[in-house]
């Protein structure tokens, strides 16, 4: 990762890219002996605040919600970190869950009920990690094995190998299906479930690329195929919307607005001060991410159980550890200069991401930013790490290539930075972006 020089960062702040008036307040500089912010030591020092301090969690939740009035925020403010009521009282679920592997797959393909090995232990052995590598190792297991929910659509797709391949249910070289697990649910049924990895990992050349968006995942097609085969009725409007998503896109918001997003990569989150495409979460401490993940796992399991907080923390540490594939190509000087002049004002942090910018300013489809579900009126400046593999672009995946993104004749609205460049300069800029 190449860090921008300080002058570029200063320029970004001076030019007011994004909404600096609402940017997270910079924490005071650490006193001598204190760990640098966002270092491993600094992250680990906050573990107990998240795991053991309800007041700290509640304060962190309230601080992290960029718009307390949207539905994402309201659900959590009504339920989380209340100690004597709400989700804090839910039973803690440490599930028995195993990845779907080549050994398990044949039975699932025949439509047989999944089974767990006799005596299968729970995912977590109850030992709290004490080092960052231990937290990351546990977090990796959560990422691949903690069920978000039972997924009947996946159970169905596994019985149709053509459909499974067509909707992005991918297999590694050794036959495993990352993102799918067999697990015992909270009602005692053994089911196939999905995990974080179903969207946030992909398989290339037989190997898992952890953290890269699975842009082949066509959840809308999968759901609509299931509905058609089983004769279940969905409203014409909802079916139309699902059909419009396409691979790598889905509607993830709590409202009824039509605002699908592209599955994002998970690169450089340690440097991003806002989470989700609309900057729904102010990422001013690791508690913000851990709470987001804890409440996600609670909400996805219909608020009947909650995960052990140690697992939500481990998941956050794992996500912070993710690094994109790298390239050996040296950054071309011409393109780098163009980037500093035309892009670095917003893509200013060490991950080539940045703060939030008003939806009206960036000019992309405003539905997500202004929606009742997760809207803030703004969009987060995303990371450009591994952008060469990041198509389609913009929060809604409406732009198919970097060339299209910089084209002056592009039809998709918004993000006009770079489109005023002559062709040679656009090519040089793209050549630079492809080295990130």
């Amino acid at each position, binding site marked *: 990762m190449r860090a921008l020089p300080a002058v570029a960062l200063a320029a970004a702040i001076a030019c007011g890219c994004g909404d600096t008036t609402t940017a997270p307040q910079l924490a005071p500089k650490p006193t001598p002996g204190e760990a640098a912010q966002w270092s491993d030591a600094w992250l680990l020092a906050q573990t107990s605040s998240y795991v053991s301090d309800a007041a700290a969690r509640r304060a962190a939740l309230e601080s992290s919600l960029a718009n307390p009035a949207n539905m994402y925020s309201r*659900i959590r403010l009504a339920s989380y970190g209340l100690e004597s009521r709400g*989700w804090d009282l839910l039973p803690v679920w440490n599930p028995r869950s195993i990845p779907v592997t080549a050994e398990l797959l044949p039975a699932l393909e025949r439509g047989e009920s999944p089974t767990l090995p006799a005596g299968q232990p729970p995912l977590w052995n109850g030992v709290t990690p004490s080092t960052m590598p231990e937290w990351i190792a546990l977090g990796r297991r959560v990422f691949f094995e903690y069920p978000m929910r039972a997924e009947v659509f996946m159970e*169905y797709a596994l019985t149709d190998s053509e459909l499974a391949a067509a909707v992005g249910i991918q297999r590694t070289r050794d036959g495993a299906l990352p993102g799918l697990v067999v697990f015992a649910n*909270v009602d005692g*049924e053994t089911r196939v479930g999905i995990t974080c990895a179903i969207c946030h990992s992909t398989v290339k050349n037989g190997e898992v690329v952890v953290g890269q968006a699975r842009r082949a995942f066509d*959840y809308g097609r999968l759901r609509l195929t299931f509905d058609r*085969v089983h004769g279940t009725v969905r409203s014409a409007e909802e079916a139309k919307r699902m059909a419009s998503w396409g691979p790598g896109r889905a509607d*993830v918001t709590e409202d009824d607005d039509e605002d699908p997003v592209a599955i994002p990569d998970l690169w450089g989150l340690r440097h991003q001060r806002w989470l989700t495409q609309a900057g729904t979460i102010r990422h001013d401490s690791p508690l913000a991410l851990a709470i987001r993940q804890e409440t996600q796992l609670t909400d996805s399991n219909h608020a009947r159980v909650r995960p052990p907080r140690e697992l939500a923390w481990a998941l956050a540490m794992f996500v912070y550890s993710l690094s994109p594939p790298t390239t050996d190509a040296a950054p071309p000087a011409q393109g780098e200069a163009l980037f500093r002049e035309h892009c670095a004002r917003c893509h200013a942090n060490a991950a080539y991401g940045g703060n939030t910018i008003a939806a009206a300013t960036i000019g992309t489809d405003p539905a997500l930013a202004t929606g009742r579900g997760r809207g803030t009126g703004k969009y987060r400046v995303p990371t450009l790490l591994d952008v060469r593999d990041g198509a389609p672009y913009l929060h809604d995946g409406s732009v198919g290539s970097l060339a299209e993104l910089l084209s002056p004749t592009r039809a998709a609205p918004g993000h006009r930075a770079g489109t005023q460049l002559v062709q040679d300069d656009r090519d040089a800029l793209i050549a630079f972006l492809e080295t990130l």
Partner: protein
Amino acid sequence: MMKHLIVILALSAVSCDKGTPPRAKATVTLTSVSFADDCGGTPPSDAPPSPARREAPAAAAKERAEPLDEGARRRCEQTSMQLVVVGDAGTELHIKSVEVFDADGKSLGKLSASKPTRWNETNAAYEPWDEKVGAASSAVSYVLSQPSFVDQWDARDRTYTVKVIASVAGVDQPLKTTVLVVGRPPPVPT
């Protein structure tokens, strides 16, 4: 179609200090309520997933009709409520009523509560429960019938209140409610 609203409610049993009130033998706290479908409860299912079928689809089912096959049944997400019960071991608890109100306080009707289960930490599952309070705090869950307004497009993004009357050792306990926030689960909950 899965229609699923998240309702969060906390209720606490309070004792009325008028005259000679009965001693509360158990405290009941409502942890969460989830509006979804009515699958007739969530018994463990031994049926396998449906294999893929390539024939022409059957005629469309009526809305909220019984699912045509096991695959569709497994898609059903049960409306439920979760509570925490703390009290004297052996105290009997029974849910007398569950009533839903809109933001104006108008009753939208009652839901039936059935199939009580209690969380078993060892087995990491909700298991059938005889509605007798245990020695320690118990997390319990009830199946609820599906609210009539769940299918309505314009019933989403509203605030509802759920009031529960729990009978503890044969004595109705007045409960205090708090305002809820309701959302809909997105097509892809993340």
